């Protein structure tokens, strides 16, 4: 196991590459999820306000 983590002496390079990839991919994944949720809340609030105005 420790040999695996050691990566033949290139651990810092290999794991930082994979780490950065993980961060970049996760950021890409969560950005639209958050934007979607925010937009839905915003639209729902606007919708409710519009309905109240009508009454």
């Amino acid at each position, binding site marked *: 196991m420790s040999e*695996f983590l050691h*990566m*033949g*002496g*290139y651990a810092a*390079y*290999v794991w*930082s*590459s*994979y780490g*950065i*990839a993980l961060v*970049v*991919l996760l*950021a*890409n*994944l969560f*950005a*639209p*999820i958050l*934007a*979607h949720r925010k*937009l*839905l*809340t915003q*639209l*729902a609030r*606007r*919708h409710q306000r519009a309905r109240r105005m009508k009454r």
Partner: protein
Amino acid sequence: MLHFFHKLASPKHFYRISGNWIPWLGLACFGFTLAGLYEGLLVAPTDYQQGDSYRIMFIHVPAAWMSLFIYMVMAGAGVIGLVWRIKLAEIMAISSAHIGASFTFLALITGSIWGKPMWGAWWVWDARLTSELILLFLYLGVIALYNAVEDSRTAARATSILALVGVVNIPIIHFSVEWWNTLHQGPTVTKFGAPSIDIHMLIPLLLMAVAFKLFYVMVLLMRARVEVLQRERNTGWVQELVSDYE
């Protein structure tokens, strides 16, 4: 079949259908990533020249492939949007830009990290890295233009043209950079794209490439859904949708 695509092009159906697809894409992407990581980090043998540092390849090379592929998709979708005025194509084009820029950035940074132990420097003006850098600039230009134009319809059409101009230029830029590189005799070590690659190294590479492609499609659909919702916010179906929300 044609009917299916026609329906898909309508924002309402796209929103519903893509919502059904995303979980499956995510699942497939996750599976391929796990398989690719297992094959790449545990099964693939150590390279006799580069040791274990070559394992960065399993991220770097698929990311570099994606960076170019997404630019092509972006320009293709842009052309469809410009010629046939299909809104969904415009949305696909602009939603691709951020993802493409991310993959380009990833390819650059992993290339740089890989280069440090191989070349002894974080950055070398290698032809491929340089082309990738200019590709990143092209992406950033597209994003900057999209953000600067206020009306999202106009912005999408303008960026489509820019992407198209970029696509015409990419082969020229690539050729000129290769030429420049051979001319200036940079310290090019032909470590990328080894002529014969071990099958145990090729399998994880292809698995990761598929995983990245699935990831792109998934995030593209997610981004496009947000954009569709934003643009259609005053239509009946969106009102109906948000009335159920919360």
